């Protein structure tokens, strides 16, 4: 009797895997015999089947999908090892780099001079927003997607609360780039605010 009780306890432990259909043949036969003789075991199996069905049917939000893949690719690219070069090639690379360096410096100077001219023009009556566009504005530091049913008012409230504005987008995947209104503000704090926005923001991460 005691042996039977102990054996039944061991069989009780197998019931969830009888329900999911993954027991080995000998275990399955033992459980089936147990079910024949025990109403307790049959009740347990019925309960476990109901629980399994609910776990399978539970709806959760969509996984990140293609957005997550794009994020992964950016990380893979950022941490990709530099291509190995032979000594001869490395020497040539230095030569080419040496050739391009003065040109790159000159190009930067041209850009700086142009920007200076535009800023100077701004001092003669150009509005802040025009100046912003002329210089390209701050770069997007965050990426977000919004819920398809989010209203313009909800999006505006979230952006204002996070101290952010739309810098670019949407992309084909519906991703917007955000810049911080106060360039010195904390990106992490803005990110946390966006992520805490309930159902309005469905994805948010650093750019």
């Amino acid at each position: 009797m005691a042996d039977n009780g102990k054996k039944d306890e061991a069989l009780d432990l197998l019931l969830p895997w009888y329900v999911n259909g993954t027991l080995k043949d000998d275990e399955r036969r033992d459980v089936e015999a147990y079910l024949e003789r025990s109403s307790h075991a049959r009740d347990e199996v019925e309960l476990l089947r109901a629980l399994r069905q609910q776990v399978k049917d539970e709806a959760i939000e969509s996984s990140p999908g293609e957005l997550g893949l794009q994020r992964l690719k950016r990380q893979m690219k950022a941490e990709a090892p530099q291509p190995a070069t032979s000594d001869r090639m490395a020497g040539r690379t230095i030569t080419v780099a040496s050739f391009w360096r003065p040109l790159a410096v000159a190009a930067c100077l041209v850009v700086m001079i142009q920007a200076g001219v535009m800023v100077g023009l701004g001092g003669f009556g150009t509005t802040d927003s025009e100046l912003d566009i002329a210089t390209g504005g701050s770069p997007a530091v965050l990426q977000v997607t919004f819920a398809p049913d989010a209203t313009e008012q909800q999006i505006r409230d979230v952006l204002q609360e996070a101290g952010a504005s739309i810098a670019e987008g949407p992309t084909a995947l519906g991703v917007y780039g955000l810049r911080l209104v106060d360039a010195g503000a904390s990106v992490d704090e803005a990110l946390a605010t966006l992520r805490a926005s309930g159902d309005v923001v469905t994805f948010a991460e650093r750019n």
Partner: protein
Amino acid sequence: MAGGDQSAMDAFYRAYEGRVYRFIRSKLNDSFDAADVLNEVMFEVWRNAGRFEGRSSVSTWVLGIAHHKTIDRIRRRKPGEHVELDPEIAEDDTPNAAATLSAAQDAEQVRRCVDQLSEAHRSVVHLAFFEDLPYGEIAGIVGCPEGTVKTRMFHAKKALMKCLQGLKEMGVS
């Protein structure tokens, strides 16, 4: 993929991302955290694909990485953020299966009770009932003996029954 083939990684990501995310999400109640952990898992797969020795199935390997990454994330969280059922308390005076069957057929009640399980119990419930994995494979994923998987499932079931019975008595629907 072990040779750095990015298109192979794309295919791998698309094949496993949904399952891995769902497993992580079953343990974390925050979709942003779950997306972060998914990214960490996939990046580790990318970096360590060459170390996969084929001793287990690919899904066991990747779900094992997901399990450990999720545990790391939970440990970094502030204590007290998640209240879990104490399995010892939950096991006292456990109702019988027939009495809790009707509550177990209510999706919302089951979800509420599963959410209150400890991380270890939720993992086993998810892997056994959503993934339909044998206990041996679950043991490989969560890194414990097969006997421990069986007893965790047993305690999880008792805790769920106790929780469902409690909701039923309170008239929660």
